[in-house]
């Protein structure tokens, strides 16, 4: 399980990282001293578990949980015992660890995570993504999180280490890969029709032999993706 640690105290992060190091299945990918940076990271990368300090100045753990559309599994780490009841109002919150966290208690929490993983896949699921059609996607541009309506996206084009996300009004240049954004998009609505292009199926105007017209953009269809595209069309 990939995990990240969010805590404004370096000492607390070090302790959680040490606890994680004792669990072979856990791989700490990144640590953050604030929730905003973590949200930007989660928009770029799929993570299974977040160890989250609930009490942070500015943007709290609660704000963090409420901001994420499809949050990964979250284990709260906190000094406040009185938050426990409120914590379980959020489906993504799996457990609540009171500092200082003992190894024994931490292991129980990981077991709980494993049990849940066996019941349903950990992390943002495709199913969840599919229900997100018409909802939002946050993109990170120049340290700003910009909200895009998924149903306003027409085409996404790979441009080296970046992608261009095109809507009818704007083009957003984002530092990520086509593969990563594809994982965030509902499969029923978006389809990759070329190694450099993902299209919004609902925005197709017409299709010629080797290309799709979306707005004013003519998008090439690769030979390998053409059969799948044709299969999904409601042909008369």
């Amino acid at each position: 399980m990939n995990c990240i640690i969010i805590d404004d105290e370096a000492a607390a992060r070090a302790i959680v990282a040490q606890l994680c190091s004792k669990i072979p299945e856990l791989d700490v990918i990144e640590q953050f001293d604030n929730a905003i940076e973590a949200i930007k990271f989660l928009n770029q990368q799929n993570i299974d578990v977040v160890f989250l300090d609930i009490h942070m100045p500015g943007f709290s753990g609660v704000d963090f949980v409420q901001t994420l559309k499809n949050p990964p599994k979250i284990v709260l780490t906190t000094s406040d015992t009185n938050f426990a009841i409120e914590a379980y109002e959020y489906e993504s919150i799996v457990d609540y660890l009171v500092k200082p966290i003992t190894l024994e208690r931490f292991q129980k929490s990981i077991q709980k995570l494993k049990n849940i993983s066996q019941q349903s896949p950990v992390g943002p699921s495709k199913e969840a993504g599919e229900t997100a059609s018409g909802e939002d996607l946050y993109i990170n541009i120049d340290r700003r999180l910009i909200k895009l309506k998924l149903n306003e996206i027409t085409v996404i084009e790979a441009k080296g280490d970046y992608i261009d996300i095109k809507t009818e009004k704007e083009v957003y240049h984002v530092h990520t890969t086509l593969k990563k954004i594809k994982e965030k998009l509902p499969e029923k609505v978006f389809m990759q029709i070329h190694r450099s292009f993902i299209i919004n199926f609902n925005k197709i105007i017409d299709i010629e032999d080797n290309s799709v017209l979306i707005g004013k953009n003519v998008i090439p269809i690769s030979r390998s993706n053409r059969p799948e595209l044709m299969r999904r069309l409601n042909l008369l």
Partner: protein
Amino acid sequence: MIETPNLNYIKELAGEDIEFEKKFIHIIKKEFPEEVDTYLEQIQTNELLMAAETVHKLKHKFNILGLEKAYGYAVTYEEDLREGNNKMDMDFRSILQKITKYLTTI
């Protein structure tokens, strides 16, 4: 009487991982004085809500250093600060001083 700080929790967590113990001591030696300075400044400028946030961070370190009574004291003080009351300041400072002195010995 203030309890004596100790590294029992950290040593237990470290096990044979001496590097973690060293790393943690380095972190707490750096982070604790910074938080103490922040706290003192906030009290001086009467920013009590901000001071409550700092006490919240400091109380976690009390816990890590095995200071259960001091932790309980800090919980009460944090609540008092949120209500605009800093009467426990001097006693809280003596806890901070004790820990500061202890950190010079490890």
